């Protein structure tokens, strides 16, 4: 499990508190249609039985062509600013965003990669271990949508199949009229379905859908983390007392670590 203990900082700001499950952007291309938390998850949250998820973070990697607005999207969400000047990202940038989902603290670690071809070698070294892959394209430039396939393929190569949530995000929504946007979305939704990704249209300039989108990302990543944790623990439980040797240690204080040799000498 990729996890690291976070310093317990100040409380989460109010607009990062997620109590009800954020909705999809379009039902035509979304990862799940449910509008509330998974039963097991909300039960676990109520009983504060989420294990170590509260101390966990999920890694989010944002990829896409240069100048589609990856950095702008992240800066709009994390710092609530929009800079008109284009500044190419060199290598990778990094933001940490703290949430409180269903009463449990949770963090997203957002890696903003460079879109320029010449920085791809460095950027691709950061794709590994992602729980969420956000592939961004420019709604006004359909060529960038075409390239998302390649970006996604590169990012998936560094991750184990089936471990990541995929999002396809169209940026610069403010530059399009309603009709033009709808037209672009049809194409994007088709591709999203092909990729098995969830589709969103956003604008970093106006801030439209930006918060809703990241809340959705956080909620899905959080739910997945909790479910995975519950599953791991429940799969660990039946082994206890199964007659196999190691499970004799059930009553020892280091029960949770029973999968590891917990001799003090080995650390």
């Amino acid at each position, binding site marked *: 499990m990729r996890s690291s203990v976070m310093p317990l900082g100040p409380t989460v700001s109010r607009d990062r508190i997620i109590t009800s499950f954020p909705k999809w952007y379009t039902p035509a291309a979304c990862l799940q249609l449910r509008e509330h938390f998974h039963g097991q998850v909300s039960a676990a949250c109520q009983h504060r039985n989420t294990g170590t998820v509260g101390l966990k973070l999920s890694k989010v990697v944002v990829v896409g062509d240069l100048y589609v607005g990856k950095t702008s999207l992240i800066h709009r969400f994390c710092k609530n600013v929009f800079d008109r000047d284009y500044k190419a990202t060199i290598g990778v940038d*990094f933001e940490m965003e703290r949430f409180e989902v269903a009463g449990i603290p949770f963090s997203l670690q957002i890696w903003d990669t460079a879109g320029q071809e010449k920085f791809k070698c460095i950027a691709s070294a950061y794709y*590994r271990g992602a729980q969420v892959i956000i592939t961004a394209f420019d709604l006004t430039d359909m060529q960038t949508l075409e390239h998302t396939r390649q970006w996604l393929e590169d990012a998936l190569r560094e991750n184990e199949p089936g471990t990541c949530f995929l999002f396809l995000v169209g940026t610069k929504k403010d530059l399009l009229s309603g009709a033009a946007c709808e037209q672009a979305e049809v194409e994007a939704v088709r591709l999203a379905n092909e990729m098995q990704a969830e589709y969103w249209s956003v604008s970093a300039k106006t801030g439209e859908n930006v918060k809703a989108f990241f809340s959705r990302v956080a909620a899905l990543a959080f739910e997945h983390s909790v479910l995975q944790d519950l599953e791991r623990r429940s799969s660990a439980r039946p082994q206890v007392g199964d007659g196999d040797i190691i499970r004799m240690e059930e009553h020892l204080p280091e029960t949770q670590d029973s999968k590891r040799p917990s001799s003090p000498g*080995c650390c």
Partner: protein
Amino acid sequence: MGTKMANLDSAQKLLGVPPPPDGVGGGSCSGISTELIRSLTELQELEAVYQRLCGEEKVVERELDALLEQQNTIESKMVTLHRMGPNLQLIEGDAKQLAGMITFTCSLAENVSSKVRQLDLAKNRLYQAIQRADDILDLKFCMDGVQTALRNEDYEQAAAHIHRYLCLDKSVIELSRQGKEGSVIDANLKLLQEAEQRLKAIVTEKFAIATKEGDLPQVERFFKIFPLLGLHEEGLSKFSEYLCKQVASKAEENLLLVLGTDMSDRRAAVIFADTLTLLFEGIARIVETHQPIVETYYGPGRLYTLIKYLQVECDRQVEKVVDKFIKQRDYHQQFRRVQNNLMRNSASEKIEPRELDPILTEVTLMNARSELYLRFLRKRISSDFEVGDSMASEEVKQEHQKSLDKLLNNCLLSCTMQELIGLYITMEEYFMRETVNKAVALDTYEKGQLTSSMVDDVFYIVKKCIGRALSSSSIDCLCAMINLATTELESDFRDVLCNKLRMGFPATTFQDIQRGVTSAVNIMHSSLQQGKFDTKGIESTDEAKLSFLVTLNNVEVCSENISTLKKTLESDCTKLFSQGIGGEQAQAKFDSCLSDLVAVSNKFRDLLQEGLMELNSTAIKPQVQPWINTFLSVSHNIEEEEFNDYEANDPWVQQFILNLEQQMAEFKASLSPVIYDSLTSLMTSLVAVELEKVVLKSTFNRLGGLQFDKELRSLIAYLTTVTTWTIRDKFARLSQMATVLNLERVTEILDYWGANSGPLTWRLTPAEVRQVLALRIDFRSEDIKRLRL
């Protein structure tokens, strides 16, 4: 009169006399009117009214009495008031007098201050007049001064005059022209402006000549004059032009030297990094030497402009050096070959990773040098801005910060280096992967060692690669390399170890026979015949066994090495971060990548555990199980005589302990202490579980129970000596079973159960206690059933 009434009224209030209650008292206030009385005809009614009137009369009388009582006090008050009258008149007179005096003083003061104000105005005007007269005099003096200075070629003096003129208030000059001598001043002004133009032209020309001749004192002389003429930008741009030329010529010289360097030179491998270093050092020296002049004559905040011009030349020179580097070292060619190798995994024209070693080192060195140089510029410029912006608004400061970031991040040097590092990362990845593969292929094991050579080799390589990335001083590059190393260790290298463990710990022929044979005699027999088996087969299985155990040790060392690697990297990087490398998020990026690396250490730990379980179930369990099963062949339903005989000729436990000891000795020699410890722990757990099973299959009498208790005690005593972990806990259930089997009577259990259990925590359920009790053939089942547990 009116006042008197009022006084009376208030006096009444003061005395606290309550006003008459409503509706009662006060002649006219009576509720019964004369008309009402007249209209009455009935005696009864009349009497009633009369009664009421009498009542009212009494009330009125009481009130009157009360009022009369107050008369005295009111009269005395009145007397006092009358006495106060004259005093009040006196006070009034005094007050009027005071008011008159105040009014007088006020007008006097106003009178005085208006004069002062007039004086002040006059003084100010006087000062202005003097200032203007001074200015006009200055102007004249400047006009004269400029002419003479120009004639004497004293350009500093002339520039100082012009500077004075430029500093004068333009409106003053405008006003002076409107005076009587307007035409004279006009003419003078014209002369002055001409002189200014002339001086500008002369200075520019002289500066150009001086730069052409490379006459540094003259260059500096005229450089100092520019700001006096208000030509800051021009001065800086011309001066930097001169400096750039110097940088360029020096750089060209250096580059020529490089091309002529002998390949056997000691620094030949890093010659391009050295050239860049010389270039950067040259520029840094220029900045160092000329910063004081710029600061003194151009004011703070101008260094940015100078460096902006210099950076253009620096970029040009860097481009040349890097171009030469790419060409001479075949950098792009090498990269393409590496990429092909990585992509196709084809054996065709595979690059020997060792060939890449020098070029990789050189690239990181080049990047480190440019990072150092850029950091130097950043420090200089921002401290210069700081001095200039000490009074400036937050916006101006941010604007300056932004332009500084833009200059340093977007300069060609930064971009070129980023590109080189991008290619470097891929080549370094290839270098690491290939060298690791080679180390795995050349893996050797030396007798007496716990681990094989590849673990040390692989970690040496990983450390080397990450260390090289670190030496580039680029945090992004370092983090990328840590990520790549994490992937390499987690997937490729772990797979190697995993596959070795998958081959399993071979069951020996010796064990195969054991499995089929149950009698202890036969085991002894066959073990005596062991030498007869095909030795070749045993040899290879021995090898496989050894390989399995060595791999276990390897896995353990890997997980330890990863932790060590993390610690070393952490301490190395604190140095780097303390120098302020890599912006605000650098530490967070680094920590995140490092935590991924540490997670791999745990994966190795899990793998070790898997291997141990495998070892336990394939190597230990098949052997231990039959040994324990022989327990069944030893009767525990014994008489005194047999019990004593057992004492002399132990039927089971001594042999069992001996077997265990022999078997574990084999592992102890070839496993690391930590792993051996885990293994013995697994083994003792196995023994406990298996022994419990056979005990539940046996039958006991009183002496048999005692015998079992003795056997268990010696077994626990032995196992305590071989493990560092406490094993009492693992044997708690068995010990409790022995206690139960040792009881005199069924009901004796109650002395130990429930409220009487004391410090003992029962690990056996009531049902299990009954089950164990039932193993005693001398206990009646009705008694057991009757027990209340």
